[in-house]
Structure formats: structure tokens, C-alpha cells
């Protein structure tokens, strides 16, 4: 039912899905001959479907607001993009597991606040675990973040590069992220994140 729903609803995409031929031969049992031999030169015993390996890639643009980036008590905003990778191996019915580990990398293209120049934001890599809360997928992540150094001559200040750790929580269309950075301490942001999934499927 779920697969049929996906196929119907994604008809535009599935029609143009490229056929992946990696590991294409089917499963076959060569230990026994066909059950009935007739001598027909064209007779053939088909194999079985070998199952599917799916790499789900989520492209996730986001807009976040929060505080703590510069310890000035003012709100900050940032917009960026994350890419998340999940792997599913099964008999071909599932596109996603109900719970699974994943890896996410991301960066903020701009980070801005009042009375400071806009700078490039942090870049991170996270290990995530997604699970279901009822029917709602939730995700927790932990990883490492890096801020590049930046020159801010307008306010006579150079921003040092910094490294730190981060924790994140994601619900559909929502992200909450906390960081502790070596130069600036704690920061927290939350906001809108749009996960756009792409499925790369091939034979096991």
C-alpha cells in the first residue's frame, strides 16, 4: 500500500528514474534443475528479485534564528543548506526505515545580526539517529562545527576561526541546534528546514 502510494504520487519522478544496472542479475538457485524438463529450447526459469539498496539523500535548505553567536545578547539569523545521507537495505518495499542512523553535513551561507557585518556561517558534520514518535519522524544529531575566520573592518574587528561541538534536534520542517564554540561559547538557533528527499536505488 505504502509503495503503491509512493509510486502513484511520484509518478512524474519515477517515470524518469534512471535504471540502475549495478548488481542487476537476479537471485537464482543453481543447485537444482528446473522442476520439469520438456526439451523446449526456449524454456527458461526466471530468478527472483534480489532486493534493493537505497541511498536517501535529503537536501535541506534552512532559515534559523537564535542567539549567542557573539555574546552581545542580540538575535542572530542564518540561512544555509544541509545534506543528509541515509541507507536502506531491504527486499525493495521500503524507501526509508522507521529508525536509522544517518550522516549530515551542512553549512550556513550567511549569518547576520544587528550592527555587525554579514559573515559566512559555520560548517558542520553530524551523526544522526532518526526515529518515530508515533507517526512523526524525529531526529537527534551530534557532531563537530567549524567557523572560518572573517575580517570585519567596519567595526575594527577580526573574527577568529573557531571549532566546537553541536547537538541538533529535527522534526518535520523544524530544526533546533545548540553549539559550544571555542571562541564564543554557547549559541542556540531554531527555525525552518525543508527536507527534500532524493532516492538513489539499486539492486543488492
Amino acid at each position, binding site marked *: 500500500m505504502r509503495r503503491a502510494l509512493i509510486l502513484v504520487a511520484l509518478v512524474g*519522478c519515477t517515470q524518469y528514474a534512471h535504471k540502475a544496472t549495478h*548488481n542487476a542479475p537476479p537471485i*537464482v538457485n543453481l543447485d537444482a534443475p528446473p522442476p520439469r524438463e520438456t526439451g523446449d529450447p526456449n524454456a*527458461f526459469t526466471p530468478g527472483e528479485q534480489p532486493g*534493493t539498496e537505497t541511498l536517501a539523500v535529503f537536501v535541506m535548505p534552512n532559515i534559523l534564528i537564535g542567539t549567542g553567536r557573539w555574546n552581545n545578547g542580540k538575535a542572530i539569523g542564518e540561512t544555509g543548506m544541509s545534506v543528509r545521507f541515509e541507507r536502506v537495505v531491504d527486499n525493495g518495499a521500503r524507501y526509508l526505515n522507521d529508525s536509522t542512523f544517518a550522516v549530515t553535513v551542512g553549512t550556513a551561507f550567511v549569518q547576520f545580526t544587528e550592527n555587525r557585518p554579514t559573515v559566512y556561517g559555520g560548517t558542520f558534520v553530524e551523526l544522526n539517529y532518526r526515529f518515530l514518535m508515533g507517526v512523526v519522524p524525529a531526529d537527534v544529531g551530534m557532531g563537530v562545527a567549524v567557523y572560518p575566520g572573517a575580517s570585519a573592518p567596519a567595526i575594527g574587528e577580526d573574527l577568529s576561526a573557531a571549532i566546537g561541538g553541536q547537538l541538533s534536534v529535527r522534526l518535520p520542517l523544524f530544526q533546533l541546534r545548540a553549539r559550544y564554540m571555542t571562541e564564543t561559547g554557547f549559541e542556540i538557533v531554531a527555525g525552518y528546514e*525543508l527536507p527534500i528527499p532524493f532516492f538513489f536505488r539499486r539492486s543488492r
Partner: protein
Amino acid sequence: MPVRVLVLVLLGACVVTRPPELGERPRWILVGPAAYAAGCAQADAFVRKSGKTGLGLTLRVRSIASCTFAVTASRIVFGRRAIAAGAIGPLDLPGRSQRYAWLPIKFDNDEMWNDGRDDATIELDVAVAGTAATWKFPVHQQ
């Protein structure tokens, strides 16, 4: 569960690549008729199974007089690489008779398919009434 699926759909999910359906999957076929005749026996080979672990041949052996037929060794040859397969013990063929024998040719066919090695030759060392010879025929995977 449909709720989650609908959420994905609304977000613009896209299937970029898909595995083949069963009918789209490759299989080994004979390039031409694989017939053999020597002495008191005539034989034909048919590919009956094909998949990840190799292919399976049915040998149909007919005698024109009382005869024995055996496959003492077999192999599939990809260029310079030969992969040994099994043997078939002597088949007794009294008078004008017909028998079928099953010969699995086992190898890592995922490896061959992924490497694009889709042409091979099957070589059977046969003994017809004790006389040895080699029966060769080409196969192709498509």
C-alpha cells in the same frame, strides 16, 4: 505510515535511480544453437537458469546406438580467465535413447556483469563411449 509518505511527496521527493524489474534483469543466452555430435551420441545445451551465482545448463543427450556420455570437466572462459565448473558422470544410453542432465556453471556473475564481461565461452570436456573431446559454445549476457 501514509501520512509520512504524503509528507515526503509534498516536499518534492524524487526517485533518481531504480533497480530493474524482474523482466529487465540480464540473463545468459546461447549465441547460437549449441549442438554437438560425436560417435554414437548427439547433444544439445540449453540455458535454463541465469543469475547472480552463474548459469544453469540442461544437456539433452541422444544416442543413435547404445552409448555412454560423460562431461569430465567444464569451465566458462572470459577472455583469458577460465572458471572451472562441475562434471556429469557417465550417462548410459541404451539403444536409441534420450536423457537430460543438469550442469550448473557457478561463478560471481555480479562481478562479471558489473565489469561488462558479457561474452564468454563454455567449454565441456566430454567423453563419448570413452573417446575424449572438447565441446565449446559461446554465450552472451543481455
